[in-house]
Each structure stands twice: as structure tokens, then as C-alpha cells.
């Protein structure tokens, strides 16, 4: 007896979508924190740190996400960590995120006019306060549209978790397609769910970008 693709099956896909969202948020959170460090290192005053972070970014931008995930997945056990696939995926996606957000935020930090940090320095404000109170709030505004676009890319990127066997949205789709033999409907529904998750973010990002452009 072959199951038909109906509302129960759609609910199964939504169960999977929950893990897509959780994985994206985890990777965005950890990747964002590390990404801030990368961006600060990339714009800091130490040359060796600038070169190191630039190389880090280059490596992640120059290799496929899939290879990065495999690398972490197979690499962690070598370092003596026996981890679940979802832990490996969170780590892999976070590292990926940190490199891309690091590069986006480097651009936004450098887009803040030099006069701002010069003025802060002239007032004797130290690095910490200069960054937290003067430069970063302005950089945040500039970098927001690109950051949200990257979040969309990240959500789409979590689909690769399916290839490592984690049951998120795409993997649920694979399983469901195998049960129902209706790949067209199933993958159509999977695409629709991704679309519904991503479109508001894309719209938001475009709207903020337009507002920033007219504000200037």
C-alpha cells in the first residue's frame, strides 16, 4: 500500500522544517559571535591577525559548504571528539557563517567614515568603547541588509545537512518522496516551505536597503 501525499505527510515535512530553523538559528548565533571577532581582527591594528583572518575568510569562501561540512564531520573524531551529526553540523555551519559574516561586517566597519573613530580617539575613548559605542552601532545599520541576505543563504545552506543524514526539511522530503513515490509534489512542498521561511527575510532586507539608500 503506497501512501498518498496528504496533510499528514505535509505535517511531517513541517516537523523537519523545525530542525531547519533550529539549525539555522544556532549557526547564526554562534557564527555571528565568531564572525564579529573575525571582523574586528580583520580591521584591527595587528597585521598578522589581519592576514590570518583574511586567509580564514578566503578558505571558507573558496571551498564548497558541503566539503566544509564533511571536513568537520570527519575531522572532529580525529581530534578525539565523538560528536553527534547535528553537533558537527552546527560547528561546521557556524564556522562557515563566521567567515561570511566576518567579511560582511568588515565591509560595514570600514564603511563607517574614518572621522568617527578619529573623533573618538581625539576624545581619548579607548578601543573597547570606541567600537561598542561609536563604530559598531553605525556599522550595524550599514551591514544589516547583507546580514539578513546571508541568513537566507544560511537557511538554504542547512539543506546540505540532509546529505549528512540529519532529518531536517530536505531529508524529510527525501524520506517522504521515497514513501509516497510522488517526488514532484513532495519536493514542490519542500521548496514551498523554504520559500515561506525565506521570503519575509528577503523582503525585509530589500526594504531596509532601500531605506538606507534614501536616507543617505
Amino acid at each position: 500500500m503506497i501512501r498518498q501525499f496528504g496533510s499528514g505527510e505535509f505535517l511531517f515535512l513541517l516537523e523537519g522544517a523545525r530542525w531547519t530553523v533550529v539549525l539555522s538559528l544556532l549557526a547564526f548565533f554562534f557564527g555571528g559571535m565568531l564572525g564579529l571577532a573575525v571582523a574586528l581582527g580583520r580591521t584591527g591594528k595587528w597585521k598578522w591577525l589581519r592576514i590570518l583572518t583574511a586567509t580564514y575568510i578566503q578558505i571558507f569562501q573558496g571551498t564548497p559548504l558541503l566539503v566544509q561540512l564533511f571536513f568537520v564531520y570527519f575531522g572532529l573524531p580525529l581530534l578525539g571528539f565523538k560528536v553527534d551529526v547535528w553537533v558537527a553540523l552546527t560547528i561546521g555551519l557556524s564556522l562557515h557563517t563566521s567567515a561570511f559574516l566576518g567579511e560582511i561586517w568588515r565591509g560595514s566597519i570600514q564603511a563607517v567614515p574614518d572621522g568617527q573613530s578619529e573623533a573618538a580617539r581625539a576624545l581619548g575613548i579607548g578601543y573597547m568603547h570606541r567600537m561598542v559605542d561609536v563604530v559598531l552601532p553605525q556599522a550595524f545599520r550599514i551591514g544589516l541588509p547583507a546580514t539578513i541576505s546571508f541568513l537566507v543563504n544560511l537557511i538554504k545552506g542547512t539543506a546540505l545537512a540532509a546529505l549528512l543524514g540529519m532529518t531536517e526539511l530536505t531529508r524529510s522530503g527525501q524520506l517522504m518522496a521515497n514513501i509516497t513515490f510522488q517526488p514532484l509534489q513532495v519536493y514542490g512542498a519542500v521548496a514551498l516551505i523554504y520559500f515561506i521561511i525565506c521570503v519575509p527575510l528577503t523582503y525585509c532586507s530589500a526594504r531596509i536597503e532601500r531605506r538606507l539608500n534614501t536616507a543617505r
Partner: protein
Amino acid sequence: MNYTFDFTPVLAAWPSLLDGIIGTLRMSSLSMVFGLSLGIVFMMMRMSKNKALRAIAIGYIELIRNTPILVQVFFVFFGMPALGIRLSGEQAAILAMTLNCAAYAAEIVRGGVQSIRPGQFEAGRALGMHAIDIYRFIVFRPAIRAVYPALCSQFILMMLNSSLMSSVSAEELTYFAQTLDSQTFRSFEIYLTLGVIYLAMSQFFSIALGMIGRVYFSYPAK
């Protein structure tokens, strides 16, 4: 950490890795050419005065840009046979990447066309040129020139994305690496090598395409 690295099985498999590199380049360059052509069609639809054409183009572009390429290729590879169209892994990969690339290329090229001053279009119209001729003879080259770096990044992105096509058994680099992995179990060494190869390829293309661009678009623009 007590693991002995052994790259010999990886290095011994260089002919299949080379096949993989060729497969990756074949698929990504074909998809780029088809995708760019289709993308220009979508771009012109997107910018046309006809509301229906514009709606179709926007719908298509947003649909592609807000869904993962992995789901798109699954849709093509597993879904098409249900419609009676049977595709090989590589055909499905090229089709999916073309459809994907078209949406991104349409937006990139649109940015280029919008950077052309309206006076250029008006001059063409004043000379009695047809809209297509205005694009072909006046707008196109400076528009592509303006977005050439973005198109290069798009190509590199496609090349990296083609690694996903191993999941529909298209014979590209990652596919051969996975085959090798299942034969030798040298996962770490294999994926390390794989990363180095992809990194080298993306660095190479970012430099080479930049040089080609400088030569091809070196006419005085002002």
C-alpha cells in the same frame, strides 16, 4: 590524537580526481553559459513594460532565490521522471544549475543595465532603433562590463555549488571523492585534498577571469 595520515590512496587516485575536475568545470561552465543567456531573457522580461511578463520574471527569480539549490536539483532529478522526462544525473545537474543561475544572473545583469544612463537609451530611440537593437549595440557591453566582477563571483559560486550534484550521481569532483572515500575510508585526507583542489580552482578562476575581463573590456569607456 593518534591518527596516521596516509595520503597515498588519495594521490594514487589522481586520474579519477582529474576526471572529477573536468566534470565540475564542464557542468559549471555549461550551466553558466546557458544560465546567463536565460538570465538575460528574464532580465528583459523583468524590465519590460508588460505587467504579465514582469510578474512572471519576478515570481521566477524570487522562487529560485528563496529555495535551496539542493531541493531544486532533487525536484528536477526525481520529479521530472513523474512528468515522463527522464534525465541522467549530469543532465539534471546542468538543468538545475542553469535554472538557478538564470535567476541570479538576471538580477546581476539588471543592476548593470540600470547603471547605464537613460540618455543612452534615449539616443538609441532617437535614432529609431528597436528595443532589442538598443540592448545589443548600445547597452549590453557597458552593462556587462559594469557587473563583470559579480558575474565572475557567480561563476565561482556555481562551481562550488556543483559539489552538491554528487547527490544525484552527476560525475563531478565531489562524486569521485565520495566514491574514493567508500573504497579507502580515508575520509579526512580525501576531504582535505578536496578542499585544497576547490580552493585552488576558485583562486585560479578569480585571477584568470579578472585578467580576461581587463583585456576584453579594456576599451576606453568615457
